[in-house]
């Protein structure tokens, strides 16, 4: 039933000299004109956690997909235990002992834990599934990994973290030699991460080679032994984690772009604007079951940061300000003219721009080119009868590709082939091209790499200095604090605090969110 050692007999691994379980040599993969991987080599040793490091678009996902047989390799060699392999499908890779747990758990939510773990390999008795045996086997595996879950419970009842552990249990139950964990910790809290690491350590002791991909450097330093650093589809270096400082690692990952971060620190908080008449005023703006009546004023050239947990109402407020959802109470005035925003189009005509937190569903038009994506909002506001002249088009696109350092710098590339960070830059360009007076950015840096993040932050600071008003929403408090002149804190679908950002610390904000400080009235001197 279970698999799988290499088909053609296992080569005996010499005990002394460690030999990689898997070696990928000079792997290249090309999509159309884009070279996603360029002669990248990776070695995975048994009993090691190997971190794959790099920014978004560095080629980590592509490399994983090459290893798991999702993408065909254009050039290069994969050897497993010294034998050359070519995977034609994910199933073939799995048969060779390579198991993958993806970011989104892909198990069946309404089956039990045991059923999920043994899906497709159910023990049978008299032709039907032997439930008792199945539960017994699942329990044994879970126990072995130190996961405390009743195999008879339905998967759906458990938090994502547990589901993830079940996915891992399932993956190792097929006797994986290599376990690939792609961003396994992105939706876990600290305790859950610790649980995951315990399981990973146990597997490591048993000689499994674990590939770990994560954006969190601290986690990498806690769990990984060796790492391979990629940049722009090329191999930068293979390093032992213990011999590399975090600063060195960041440098290796982003290369020359580190200067951007330095520059940013100097660009940070602009002048404390907030004088004169506000550009935008919301009075009692609210929507049933979405947001309680909220007041907000936005002045020219200031950045208002909105802090709050997921579901606190920060996104909901942004959507009402833009007319993406319609408010059912309150008033919104732009330049003292009261407006009811009935649609995004309305807001755009009032020179408001909004970049949604859900890049993929609400921003990117994947099958159109980078150029078309950039010009979409401008074109929409001109109407279809007045196409943007060829010359203006080319100039705008070229300027913004340069200004935001979008890669590949090819206006005809399809949007869906870009990495997350570059897509985000294109979306930012889409709105800047409309020359807005008010720019609402909801999580503009989520899930993108440090380099792109720094570039976007720097751009926001620069724009505010030029007089643009920005509403900046992010789950990362450091980022909000670094950029904002004024800070709005939200909780439970309402605004609970507003203050000028002079030396507000992350701790302060957390205390406000946790409800440990005074109410709105007596803060803010």
């Amino acid at each position, binding site marked *: 039933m279970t698999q799988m050692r290499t088909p053609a007999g296992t080569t005996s691994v010499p005990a002394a000299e460690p030999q990689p379980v898997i070696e990928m040599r000079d792997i290249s993969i090309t999509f159309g004109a884009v070279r996603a991987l360029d002669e990248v080599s990776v070695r995975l040793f048994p009993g090691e956690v190997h971190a794959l490091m790099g920014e978004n678009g560095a080629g980590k996902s592509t490399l994983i997909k090459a290893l798991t047989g999702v993408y065909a390799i254009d050039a290069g060699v994969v050897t497993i235990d010294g034998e050359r392999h*070519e995977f034609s499908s994910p199933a073939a890779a799995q048969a060779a002992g390579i198991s993958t747990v993806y970011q989104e758990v892909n198990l069946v939510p309404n089956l039990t834990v045991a059923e999920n773990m043994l899906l497709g390999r159910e023990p049978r008795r008299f032709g039907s599934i032997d439930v008792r045996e199945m539960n017994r086997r699942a329990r044994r595996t879970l126990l072995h990994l130190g996961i405390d879950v009743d195999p008879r419970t339905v998967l759906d009842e458990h938090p994502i973290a547990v589901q993830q552990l079940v996915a891992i249990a399932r993956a190792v139950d097929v006797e994986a030699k290599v376990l690939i964990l792609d961003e396994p910790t992105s939706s876990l809290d600290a305790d859950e991460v610790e649980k995951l690491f315990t399981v990973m350590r146990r597997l490591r002791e048993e000689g499994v080679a674990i590939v770990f991909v994560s954006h969190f450097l601290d986690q990498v330093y806690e769990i990984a032994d060796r790492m391979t650093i990629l940049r722009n589809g090329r191999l930068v270096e293979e390093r032992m984690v213990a011999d590399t400082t975090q600063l060195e690692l960041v440098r290796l990952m982003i290369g020359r772009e580190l200067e951007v971060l330095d520059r940013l620190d100097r660009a940070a908080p602009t002048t404390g604007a907030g004088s004169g008449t506000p550009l935008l005023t919301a009075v009692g703006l609210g929507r049933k079951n979405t947001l309680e009546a909220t007041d907000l004023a936005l002045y020219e050239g200031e950045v208002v940061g909105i802090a709050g947990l997921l579901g606190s109402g920060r996104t909901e407020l942004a959507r009402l300000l833009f007319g993406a959802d319609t408010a059912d109470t309150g008033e919104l005035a732009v330049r003292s003219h009261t407006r009811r925003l009935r649609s995004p189009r309305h807001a755009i005509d009032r020179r408001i721009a909004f970049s949604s937190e859900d890049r993929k569903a609400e921003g990117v038009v994947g*099958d*159109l080119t980078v150029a078309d994506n950039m010009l*979409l909002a401008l074109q929409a*506001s001109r109407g279809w009868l007045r196409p943007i002249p060829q010359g203006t088009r080319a100039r705008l696109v070229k300027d913004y590709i340069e200004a935001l350092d979008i890669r590949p710098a090819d206006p005809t590339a399809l949007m869906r082939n870009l990495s997350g960070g570059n897509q985000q830059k294109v979306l930012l360009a889409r709105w800047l091209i409309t020359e807005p007076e008010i720019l609402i950015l909801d999580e503009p840096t989520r899930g993108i790499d440090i380099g792109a993040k720094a570039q976007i932050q720097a751009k926001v600071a620069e724009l505010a200095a030029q007089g643009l008003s920005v509403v900046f929403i992010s789950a990362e408090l450091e980022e909000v604090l670094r950029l904002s002149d004024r800070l709005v804190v939200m909780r439970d679908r309402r605004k609970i605090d507003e203050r000028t950002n002079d030396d507000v610390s992350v701790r302060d904000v957390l205390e406000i969110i946790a409800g440990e400080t005074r109410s709105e009235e007596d803060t803010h001197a």
Partner: protein
Amino acid sequence: MPEPTSLVQRVLRHQLLWPVLALFVLLLVNVVAKPSFLDVRMQDGHLYGNLIDIVRNSAPVMLVALGMTLVIATRGIDLSVGAIAAIAAAVACTRIIGAGDEAALRTAVMAMTYAVVVCIVLGAWNGLLVSVLGIQPIIATLILMVAGRGISMAITDGQITTVNNPWFSDLASGFVLTLPLAFLVAVGMVLFTALLTRRTALGMLIEAVGINPEASRLAGVRARTIIWTVYAFSGLCAGLAGLVIAANTNSVNANSLGLWIELDAILAVVIGGTSLMGGRFSLAGTFVGALFIATLARTIPNIGIPSEVNYLFKAVVVIAVCLLQSPKARALLRVRRSGTPTLANGAPA
């Protein structure tokens, strides 16, 4: 090895390659069955021959498929085109009969204009259901697909109405510059649509709405107006097709005119490479697709397929063409031929 794309590669990758190839093969089959198939001769200043018949007969499907292409690009579908065609024919024919001078040019022009306007209104009705009321396109247009037949029956009192207007019949049987007028009308519409969508921003906005409606809305695209426009345009195209069909027989049978034409049109669109999932569309592809459908209709009698099985034959050919276009199916074929699946240029170890 990022080599510059050569001409051969560009041709091989071109999305029109497969539809054109399929059309070519179909013509070849005909020539094998009947060597004189491609002969075209000049007579009385007009061209005659199978090819000429094919392009003339392709006009209705081409027109309908044209409107359908834009509808499909917005993730929609228009099932009512056959019924709309019947209504157009019914309206035009009854107007011609009812006019004082049945054979006058003015009568024909007025009747056709009237019919086309009615069809635009009907298309706009579809657009209203889809874009404003948010009814699924397949259901929304199904309503008119069924009701439209009833409407055209009511207009003609359930009779087969025959008209006698030489100007009207010219729409189907007339020639201009040696070519059939019907074909020229269809080609003219294709070119007009190409200009309309590609020289303005309409095409890009239609595609944006089809690919990601919510992102388009948030970018300020008036998706509602665009969807409305494409359904109205589809109505217009269907109306023109109905007029061509009616002019061909100088009569209208509300029951059968344009029956199943929506399916031929959808096929033409798909063969032309526009995905039913919406998004990017190819008018050139639709043009070739419509020619393919018309050629196929001609092929069936020419190579002696018995009429009992002609639908079956058509289905088989369509499946073959669709498989040919599917990258997945092509990859499978390739695997079969070469034995191993992957590694285009795996370096020797």
